[in-house]
């Protein structure tokens, strides 16, 4: 297929402008107001007005008080992402190579459950992991849990919920990458004395890396900010940063701290992404 | 805007050319020039072929005539009217695209009717039925393009363009995707349709056999310029450049120097042997040239034997390779000066087939030889076998 010739001129601008303006107004500019809010004098409020002090101390306060939920959020998200990677890779691989003419149908089936409400799906896990439910009973039987052990209100439940809810974000980019791999390459590797395990690690895995990178990023980033799973499946001991931020905005009316925490979360994510992508060596994420 | 008015070609009263005329047409891209000062006259009603290897500028030229590409400079005139700046949807020119470009969401009927509907032509149904009958696709009228075979799609593309009775029909390598047998039958088919319909066809191709079979006039293009233009026989029998000599069929090119020019015959010293070449078949100003002779024109015989008719005789050859192809035998003969010459001998049964290592004599009639400028590359235009 020949390269598409792009048209130069004003029409391109005009077409792009409405969307660009919307995003500039409601995505870019809000970051400035987020920064500004995070630097407000904490003693202010929506009523009394805020005094703009360059209160970098807000960040110190915020971190001092809430570093635990922050770390927890990152750890939970990381573990969940790893689980998603394993489950998602199996699923993506199966669909890409082993499904023949059912490929499209299977792909759509992967996404179909996720057209149901996120909250309802998470509530379902409350039922599945309930104290008198099957899973807990089996775990107790297998001595994984003590006789009065629970799954709900533990990090296990939160991570399970996260891993479930963000699975499609992992599967789809993985699939896109794996699907592009020419199966004849794997055949060639077996011809050259590689057993299936070696073939996987030496051929399939490296070639699927771009998908692994996008998948892990698209899973980790939203998972780090999520608090629905933590609060529906967890307890006060599993509070995560997302819930703190929401709480500070709505209940405690402490916008400055909330904004500061938001900024911190974002900065950490950006930094992690930056080093991760550098390390993985793939520039093409899109 | 009355497109109908533009579409009817006025035979211009000011005596200007009533066919397609390209004048000094140039197309420059960033970094290279695709078409360089092209001058071309395509007579009305003729079947014209633009022949050349990929990258020679023939498709770019075609697209400029269609209006899909803007020339950097130069003019395009059709029946006396300058259409250089006219938009493609206002030109009375239609194209059969290389990959057919059939609209996948419309059925065959609507594809063919597309141009008529845009021009708000009357009697659409009648015209479409006639055209579908012409290309023998009547039963498929309600099918979608994806449901047809390659050959059928090709005929739809042809019908879709033809139905608009354009001044010029452009065909951009339309047979490239078809297998050999289908290609041959489509070549005959398209030629038949052109003769029946009487429109001007401009056919772009890299296949020299295709161009020679179908066209009345062939223009050989190379690197943006026209090397030679003429009837297929003229181009083949009397090429004016090494490119044309090698691109159309095969040629043996042997070093030689002109020793004498008479009124109608030139004498050339070819590695010590004197050969004659008619003056109207010498295409070099200087004295250093390539003596050209086509392999099928070279007669091969045993050393010392009297050959068919006196002509240029070259002794001292040794057979270095024999390939029996059924219809003919291809010999490679190593000459005393080291060059291997190719000889096609038709297996008429009158002469025996020689063996490798045998000593032979070659000869040819002077009126078949031609002389080209030695400054030109002897391998220009030679078809490389591509993977």
């Amino acid at each position, binding site marked *: 297929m020949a390269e598409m010739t792009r048209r130069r001129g004003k029409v391109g601008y005009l077409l792009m402008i409405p*969307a660009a303006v919307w995003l500039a107004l409601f995505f870019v500019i809000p970051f400035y107001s987020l920064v500004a809010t995070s630097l407000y004098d904490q003693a202010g409020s929506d009523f009394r007005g805020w005094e703009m002090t360059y209160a970098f101390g807000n960040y110190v306060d915020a971190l001092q008080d809430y570093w635990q939920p922050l770390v927890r959020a990152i750890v939970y998200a990381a573990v969940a992402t790893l689980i998603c990677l394993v489950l998602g890779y199996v699923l993506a691989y199966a669909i890409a190579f082993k499904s023949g003419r059912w490929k499209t149908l299977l792909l759509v089936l992967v996404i179909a459950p996720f057209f149901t409400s996120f909250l309802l799906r998470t509530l379902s896990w409350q039922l599945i992991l309930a104290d008198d439910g099957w899973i807990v009973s089996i775990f107790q039987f297998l001595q994984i849990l003590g006789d009065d052990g629970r799954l709900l209100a533990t990090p296990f439940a939160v991570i399970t919920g996260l891993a479930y809810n963000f699975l499609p974000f992992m599967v789809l980019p993985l699939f896109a990458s794996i699907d592009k791999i020419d199966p004849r390459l794997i055949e060639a590797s077996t011809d050259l004395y590689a057993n299936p395990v070696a073939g996987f690690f030496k051929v399939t895995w490296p070639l699927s890396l771009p998908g692994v990178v996008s998948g892990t990023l698209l899973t980790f980033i939203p998972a780090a900010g999520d608090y629905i799973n933590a609060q529906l499946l967890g307890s006060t001991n599993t509070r995560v940063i997302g819930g703190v931020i929401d709480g500070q905005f709505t209940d405690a009316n402490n916008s400055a701290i*909330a904004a500061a925490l938001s900024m911190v979360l974002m900065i950490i994510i950006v930094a992690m*992404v930056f080093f991760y992508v550098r390390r993985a060596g793939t520039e093409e994420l899109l | 805007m009355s497109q109908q008015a533009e579409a009817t070609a006025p035979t211009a009263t000011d005596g200007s050319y009533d066919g397609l005329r390209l004048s000094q047409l140039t197309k420059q891209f960033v970094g290279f020039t695709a078409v360089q000062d092209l001058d071309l006259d395509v007579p009305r009603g003729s079947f014209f072929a633009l022949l050349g290897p990929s990258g020679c500028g023939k498709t770019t030229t075609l697209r400029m005539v269609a209006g899909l590409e803007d020339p950097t400079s130069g003019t395009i005139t059709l029946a006396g009217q300058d259409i250089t700046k006219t938009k493609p949807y206002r030109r009375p020119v239609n194209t059969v695209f290389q990959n057919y470009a059939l609209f996948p969401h419309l059925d065959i009927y609507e594809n063919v009717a597309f141009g008529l509907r845009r021009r708000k032509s009357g009697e659409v149904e009648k015209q479409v039925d006639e055209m579908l009958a012409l290309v023998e696709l009547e039963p498929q009228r309600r099918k979608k393009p994806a449901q047809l075979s390659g050959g059928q799609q090709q005929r739809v593309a042809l019908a879709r363009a033809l139905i608009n009775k354009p001044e010029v029909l452009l065909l951009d390598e339309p047979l490239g995707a078809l297998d050999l047998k289908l290609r041959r039958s489509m070549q005959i088919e398209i030629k038949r349709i052109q003769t029946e319909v009487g429109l001007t066809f401009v056919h772009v191709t890299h296949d020299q056999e295709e161009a020679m079979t179908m066209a009345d006039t062939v223009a050989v293009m190379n690197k943006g310029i026209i090397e030679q233009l003429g009837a297929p026989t003229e181009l083949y029998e009397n090429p004016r450049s090494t490119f044309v000599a090698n691109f159309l069929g095969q040629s043996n090119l042997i070093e030689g120097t002109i020793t004498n020019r008479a009124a109608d015959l030139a004498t050339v010293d070819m590695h010590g042997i004197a050969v004659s070449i008619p003056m109207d078949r010498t295409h070099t100003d200087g004295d250093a040239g390539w003596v050209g002779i086509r392999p099928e024109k070279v007669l091969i015989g045993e050393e010392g034997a009297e050959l068919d008719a006196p002509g240029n005789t070259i002794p001292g050859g040794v057979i270095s390779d024999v390939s029996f192809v059924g219809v003919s035998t291809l010999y490679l003969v190593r000459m005393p000066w080291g060059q291997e010459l190719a000889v096609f001998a038709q297996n008429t049964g009158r002469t025996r087939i020689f063996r490798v290592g045998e000593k032979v004599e070659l000869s040819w009639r002077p009126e078949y030889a031609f002389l080209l400028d030695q400054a030109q590359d002897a391998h220009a235009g030679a078809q490389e076998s591509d993977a």
Partner: protein
Amino acid sequence: MRWLREHLVLILGLLVLAYTFVPIGVVVLMSFNDPETRNIYRFDGFTLHNWTNFCEAPGMCDSLWLSIRIALLATLVATILGTLAAFALVRHDFAGRSSSNLLIFLPMAAPEIVLGSSLLTLFVQGGFAGQLGFWTIFIAHVMFCLSFVVVTVRSRLAGMNDTLEQAAADLYATPTQTFMRVTFPLVLPGILGAALLSFSLSFDDFIITNLNSGSETTFPMFVWGASRVGVPMQVNVVGTLMFAVSVVIVVAVELNSRRRMKALAVR
């Protein structure tokens, strides 16, 4: 044994797929639940009550209606703006094209809590703290749906061969006619897919909506609030319906394309 080895990956993959449907099964199951007490989320007995008395729970249907209205409006706006932008990014060249590409990508890569917080601070700083509600939710939804629409339409558009439009021009179609008769019909499936995606993203959003909703309650917010005191089973009816609709659409699309494939086999 050999059969097992050969099909191991496929079996594992299907197991993972089945696993994704388990919570949905729970949702469907719970829609028929007759709860003994409000607080404990557990299957106690079978009833059709939830289906027949759909709007029994106070506030649920109102929140549902609000979510639908916002989703419809946000989908409309996001699809239009996003489609225009997709055309610009694929078909045109202009200074700032690569920055625009980046701008489109970024919202997809940010956590919802950050998107929601920053938008909230904008509204507060702009003096709209008292006017949080329908329109602020709408604005937020268009904002995060835009990227998904652009990406979806863009991939459909990029896959289109532009020779078709050249052919249309060659056959006397003006640029407008070419767009209406060739380009648009071929992009339409991508646009519809993007609209569908946008609708479900908007309908289901909680985190961003929660921060910017003021006193309004969307369906996800209703479920969240109810989860603390006991969720009415009718929400599971909604969940089941959502799932059923998406299954129907999926199956319909698949059947349609299979029918077209069958037609192709007929020569």
